């Protein structure tokens, strides 16, 4: 992962709102990040923090209305994905950018065979004929470790277990050799032993194929094992971003610090009591004009209620959106 390499995907100030009867929900607020070639960027956050909506916005996957991608730039392959026409976007989605969804039970079509569903992108995007597509589909199933691939192509999704279905989803996402793979909670619906299989497979595939991956999850344990860099989201904003070891050893944002303390581990000290984060995540009915975490924060002060903190660079490729400097233990003076 060379630091100076040109990013494959560059997202700037992405803003998405949802129109509801109660008003506008500001789901994504000025999210910026870049994805470098071959790296795995982890995105962590709780439900409603905007991690999935961010990724769906940049691929134009949100129904509009109610969603409205209100601003920002998404540079991929020399063009702005938010400005291209739907046909052009369709040629990117599924071909150059692959997507794996959370629930392998509902994201496969139950009335088509698995082979049919893997061949669909191959024929649409790569222009392969039926025979070529079938050969490639079998290769893909073998690549993701499904035994007896030739026969399994003729099976329907219900004949596969959860872990196997997720492998099929990965095969479909990889079908057209994407430069970028976006995986939205790909192991959340799976059991731990199956999750371990999929994580292992993912590591193997990355070293074989070398694509860049965005991995969305709420599980910090998964992130620790697989990511190169991590972005922590809260209330539709990026609150902290750092290389993975730096983030876990030296968390700067109070939310990240609290989150790391609140999860119990299976090795290490067992706390007599779990540390909790008081309160609830905010309801995002207004654009943020103050720090969204201030009501639950243990170091909040007056300024946090007056302005929304920008992302401050703290060195080592690490930034945090907080007015309080965790390194010095006092508020920043900028």
């Amino acid at each position, binding site marked *: 992962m060379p630091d100076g390499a040109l990013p494959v995907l560059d997202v700037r100030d992405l803003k998405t709102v949802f129109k509801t009867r109660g008003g506008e929900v500001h789901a994504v607020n000025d999210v910026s990040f870049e994805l470098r070639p071959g790296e795995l960027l982890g995105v962590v956050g*709780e*439900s409603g923090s905007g991690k999935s909506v961010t990724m769906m916005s940049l691929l134009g996957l949100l129904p509009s209305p109610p969603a409205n991608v209100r601003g920002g730039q998404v540079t991929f392959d020399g063009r702005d994905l938010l400005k291209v026409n739907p046909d052009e976007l369709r040629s990117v989605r599924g071909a150059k950018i692959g997507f794996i969804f959370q629930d392998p039970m509902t994201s496969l079509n139950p009335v088509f065979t698995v082979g049919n569903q893997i061949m669909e992108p191959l024929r649409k995007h790569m222009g392969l004929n039926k025979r070529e597509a079938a050969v490639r589909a079998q290769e893909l199933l073998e690549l993701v470790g499904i035994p007896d691939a030739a026969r399994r192509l003729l099976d329907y999704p219900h004949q596969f*277990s959860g*872990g*196997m279905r997720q492998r099929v989803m990965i095969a479909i996402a990889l079908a057209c050799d994407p430069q970028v793979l976006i995986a939205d909670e790909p192991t959340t619906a799976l*059991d*731990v*032993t*199956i*999750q*371990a*299989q999929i*994580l*292992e497979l993912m590591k193997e595939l990355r070293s074989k194929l070398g694509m860049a991956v965005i991995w969305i999850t*709420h*599980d*910090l*344990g*998964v*992130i*620790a*094992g697989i990511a190169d860099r991590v972005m922590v989201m809260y209330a539709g904003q990026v609150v902290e971003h750092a290389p*993975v*070891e730096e983030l*876990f050893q030296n968390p700067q944002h109070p939310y990240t610090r*609290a*989150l*790391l303390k*609140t*999860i*119990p*581990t*299976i*090795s*290490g000290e*067992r*706390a007599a*009591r*779990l*540390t*909790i*984060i*008081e309160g*609830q*995540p905010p309801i995002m009915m207004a654009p943020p004009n103050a720090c969204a975490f201030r009501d639950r924060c243990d170091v909040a002060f007056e300024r946090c209620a007056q302005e929304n903190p920008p992302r401050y660079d703290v060195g080592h490729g690490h930034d945090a959106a907080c007015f309080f400097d965790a390194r010095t233990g006092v508020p920043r003076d900028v």
Partner: protein
Amino acid sequence: MFDGPKPLVSVKDLKMHFPIYAGFFRRRVGEVKAVDGVSFDIVEGETLGLVGESGCGKSTCGRAVLRLYDITSGSISIDDREIGATPQSDLRTMRPTMQMVFQDPQASLNPRMTVEAIIKEPLDEHTALTEAEKREKVGELMDAVGLNRKFAKRYPHAFSGGQRQRIGIARALALNPKFIVCDEPIAALDVSIQAQVVNLLEDLQEKFGLTYLFISHDLSMVRHIATRVAVMYLGKVVELAPREALYRDPLHPYTKALLSAVPEPDPSLATAKERIILQGDVPSPSNPPNGCNFCTRCPSVMDICTKVEPDYREVQPGRYTACHLYNDTAG
């Protein structure tokens, strides 16, 4: 467990098989052995963690212990009363001692009842309190679980997931139970909310002297809350041990694999850790393999494992396991 304190709950050889009907005449063609010969004791005041992957029968086991099902066979004794074969109608008088907190706080609360009505319902059924007394009791329960009394007239939809789970807990507490089965009470909640609910459960346990059966697939959370832990695989308990012993030195190969598969939130540990990746999937409980249930995926499988089912027994003081690897160490 014979020298220790007397168990409040004692389950022996519990079996819960669900029939499978098929064909035009809906003939019985087999059965799903969801729980297949499970035995354990729960001592008063302790928390027994019941862990396993989806489909291993842990939830069915929890529900069967409370006799929400008519069990296939086995004995269940709670607070010195045998309820294994008691008819459902006679169980009603026992219900106040044993309660349940359900997994999905969205689905387990009636959307058309106010919070007050939900928490009051068990009081209506089982006590002779006056309306005013009941209302006071509801207020006390809401205080106990950290809900604002002012919200008593609101409906479940007005609450967040964590708060709804508190409503479910208040309802379970209404009749001063001794024993509560918590079926994945935190699985549907966000990480930052999970800790709030777990801490609440611990506080209530201390305050009211409750005994929990805590069912979960989250091994790190079980390590936090449980006194002893039972690991289930395909309808059977494969290992039961005190918490520290189980996590420090798991005996059964399945427990070892399960613990090694848990992702640790620490990148240095994550790379150093020796992972045991199990091959394949869990076999179907309607057609379990011959011999040991785990023999199809076990990394240390031997000849005997595919032929003879291992006995479940005490291999070290307080530690039970069902595995042929420990055949000679039995005391």
